[in-house]
């Protein structure tokens, strides 16, 4: 979780020397602020993971942000219908870089058991997703496993990733503008 490999710190008299990207990666990974976009049953399991038995607070994630500007991680838990898809895209666009998306549950990942006329068959039709957590609903341990994989991604983020061309190409596929350009 919090341990950054090969983070070497040289201590001196009144100063410390280290690699900037490793320090920033440690800071980001240990305090990811999620935006719980909880729609249905997976939302209740996510609320269960906020409780004291499974406790996401030990990852520094107990501060839920409902404002997209202040959130790092968009946790989409539950079924997304076609009526809600534009709103989901708008929330994703409003988040500031760097941002990650965790798709919790079968409905968010692929439409789940609801192969119907009104359900969006997976949120990766409208926004890019980083980690998928399968389950209907997934146990809180599985959700935390997904969160830890997000932490792995955050730790290896680097400083220039969001300005790269391949990131812009990825977002162009969804017709989304890159923030802060």
């Amino acid at each position, binding site marked *: 979780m919090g341990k950054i490999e090969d983070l070497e710190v040289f201590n001196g008299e009144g100063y410390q020397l280290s690699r900037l990207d490793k320090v920033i990666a440690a800071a980001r990974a240990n305090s990811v602020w999620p935006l719980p976009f909880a729609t249905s049953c997976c939302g209740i399991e996510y609320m269960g993971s906020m409780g004291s038995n499974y406790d996401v607070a030990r990852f520094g994630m107990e501060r839920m942000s409902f404002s997209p500007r202040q959130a790092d991680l968009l946790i989409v838990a539950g079924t997304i219908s*076609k*009526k809600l898809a534009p709103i989901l895209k708008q929330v994703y666009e409003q988040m500031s870089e760097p941002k990650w998306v965790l798709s919790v549950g079968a409905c968010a990942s692929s439409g789940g058991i609801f*192969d*119907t*006329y*009104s359900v969006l*068959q997976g949120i990766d039709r409208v926004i890019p997703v980083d980690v998928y957590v399968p389950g209907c609903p997934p146990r809180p341990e599985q959700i935390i496993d997904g969160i830890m994989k997000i932490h792995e991604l955050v730790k290896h983020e680097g400083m220039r990733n969001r300005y790269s061309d391949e990131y812009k190409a990825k977002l162009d596929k969804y017709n989304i503008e890159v923030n802060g350009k």
Partner: protein
Amino acid sequence: MASKLTNEAVIERIKGQFGSDILSAETPYDFLTIEVLTSKQHEIIEWLKKDEMLSISFLTNLGGVHYPEQAGREFAVVYHLQSMVNNFRLRLKIYVSKENPEVDSIVDLYVGANWMERETYDFFGITFKGHPNLVRILNEDSMDYFPMRKEYHLEDATREDKDDRFFGR
């Protein structure tokens, strides 16, 4: 808790008031079900609400059914009413045709019928005359068909990622 009214007493009283407007009365699974003339439905429901002996004054449910084979009676609107005072339940059915699926709204009698009628319109296309705001409620506004009708598929016809052969359709 036993009901204070019996099915026989109720149907006798209703027939005594409305006679031939009651087209049929059955008791499937001991639940009184009457079919009434579509034009008299509002009047009957209002009388049921105000009648002293019956006081059937609570609307439990309102829904539609589509029977594509019955010519002239394709759509049914089913009202489930109950009397909390007498602990009695009643099911009232009316039928309309596909060409003119219009029914009187009962929003003036029961405020709770507002969304139930909108849902029935959204799913079947049955219009309710006198409804204050008859627009779609659960589906997208841009949808141009009525999904619960039997001729439409469950799945979205435009999806291209799932091969129907593997999904047993």
